[in-house]
């Protein structure tokens, strides 16, 4: 996205807030002071636990929810203030796919994809050409006359994607689109979304509770907790240097770096008296991810590190590793300095006797 002017954002959330009235006159704050920019052409993922506000945030983009404070702009147009036909025009520029697909049981694959075009008042001849093309694009030509009840979950989501693309939107919203699918099907649907993002230059904003989804397709990400964005940035940077506890806990499930229970249960935050091991997390990024750092640590400094957990994988095109080590506490600072010198990130997690 080099050369993109800074104001060329697909979606801008500006100090957005949303509260709901509660019995007793109080208000529940679903979102507070959310500011986030979704770059044009990016795949931006928002991760959060259920009830964190991510679904409300996503629904602000096409006006299914209205902000009580701040604003949402899509391609420069204010969504929160739009009403009637203005709002419907914005919605035609924003496609949406859903966790439970939300396909009409009474319509075939072809009929479901045609629905947004019928709603937009597209002439019948154009609808036919466009729907044929879309059904083909998502690989469902053979199933075009089937009803949703006859399709698998992955096929249903492909219909959902074709339907969302029908009116040639600029932005695609994905509401936990792979959460109801098995891991294999999830991969094929994510690949389809990536391909659409590349081929059409379509901006995708997705919400998920699975870090693996962000790792696989998101170029940018944000972490939401208690209605606030607690961390955001390019996915690789957030994975490499997570700053917030929530981000770390999401990451621990996906980077293969979870402390074994026998270590976690004995670990203390302060260094105990007497002999102890320091437990550190080492994050490998870029080209150093492939260097044999632990061997170098042993040969150059004579420090032995115990591997507690770890994994090396890819975020987009970049290799990315995450290792949990324990090192004899007196020599640990020396070892960390060595690793930092080689452009690795280290973090002290605690100590064990």
């Amino acid at each position, binding site marked *: 996205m080099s050369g993109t002017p800074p104001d060329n954002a697909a979606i801008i959330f500006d100090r957005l807030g949303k509260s709901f009235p509660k019995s007793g006159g109080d208000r529940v704050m679903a979102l507070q002071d959310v500011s986030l920019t979704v770059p044009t052409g990016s795949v931006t993922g928002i991760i959060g636990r259920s009830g964190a506000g991510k679904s409300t945030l996503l629904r602000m983009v*096409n006006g*299914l929810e209205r902000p009580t404070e701040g604003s949402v702009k899509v391609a420069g147009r204010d969504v929160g203030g739009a009403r009637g036909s203005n709002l*419907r025009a914005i*919605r035609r520029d924003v496609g949406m796919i*859903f966790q439970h697909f939300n396909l*009409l*049981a009474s319509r075939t694959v072809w009929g479901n994809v045609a*629905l947004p075009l*019928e709603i937009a008042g597209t002439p019948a001849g154009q609808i036919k050409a466009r729907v044929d093309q879309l059904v083909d694009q998502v690989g469902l030509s053979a199933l075009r006359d089937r*009803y949703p009840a006859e399709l698998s979950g992955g096929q249903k989501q492909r219909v959902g994607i074709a339907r969302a693309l029908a009116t040639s939107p600029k932005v695609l919203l994905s509401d936990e689109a792979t959460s109801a699918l098995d891991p294999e099907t999830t991969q094929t649907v994510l690949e389809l979304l990536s391909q659409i993002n590349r081929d059409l230059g379509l901006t995708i904003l997705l919400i998920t509770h699975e870090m693996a989804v962000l790792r696989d397709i998101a170029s940018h990400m944000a972490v939401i907790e208690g209605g606030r964005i607690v961390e955001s940035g390019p996915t690789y940077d957030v994975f490499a240097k997570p700053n917030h506890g929530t981000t770390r806990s999401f990451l621990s499930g996906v980077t293969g770096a979870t402390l074994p229970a026998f270590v976690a249960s004995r670990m203390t935050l302060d260094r105990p008296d007497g002999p102890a091991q320091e437990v550190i997390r080492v994050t490998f990024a870029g080209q150093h991810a492939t260097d044999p750092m632990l061997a170098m640590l042993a040969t150059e400094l004579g420090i032995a590190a115990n591997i507690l957990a770890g994994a090396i994988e890819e975020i987009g095109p970049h290799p990315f590793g995450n290792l949990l080590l324990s090192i004899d506490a007196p020599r640990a600072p020396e070892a960390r300095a060595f690793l930092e010198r080689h452009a690795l990130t280290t973090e002290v997690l605690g100590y064990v006797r």
Partner: protein
Amino acid sequence: MSANLIPILWEATLQTMYMVAISAVLGTLGGLPLGVFLATSQRGELLSAPWINKVLGLVVNAARSVPFIILVVAIIPFTRMIVGTSIGTNAAIVPLTLAAVPFIARLVENAIREVEAGLIEAARAMGATPMQIVRKVLIPEALPGITLGLTLAAVSLIGYSAMVGAVGGQGLGDLGIRYGYQRFMPEVMLAVVVILIVMVQLVQSLGEWIAARVDRRAARNRGH
């Protein structure tokens, strides 16, 4: 049963079919939009109009509380205003229709409320107007339920039509009372009951067949 009773039974059967068919059609014309409105006009819903919804709900409940035989005689002046007479088969269609509208409205309302909220949300996200959502999403998706509701309403109308003899509405029920009961002709009573049973069976089977044809919610063998 003597042969000269057959034409009388046949005529009464036609009269019942006529009354039920016309009042079912008119009742649907009134009850379908009313049911759709009731299902979509509570606070925060598609056509949000909570006060009108409440008032219409009360009117529907009131109309459904009145026993049909009382409705028939209570609205005689209204019937005379509409069809010019308060006696006969055409006059009987007025109370039948008036009973059918709120009944069908509630059945349609229930069927529409069965449609998943996610489908309405998806249609809103596409930029659909409330009327487009009603026409292209709610009614097609609720069609199996609406069909079964209309079947139930038609069966009830067959039963109601037996009471319109009170205003000279004729038909099978009236025949059964006048010949079978008042003239002590049990064979006429029996014939009337048998014809009504067959009629209800046919309506029910037809309704279920149509409902199954329009129901695409479950996977099934595709008959190519």
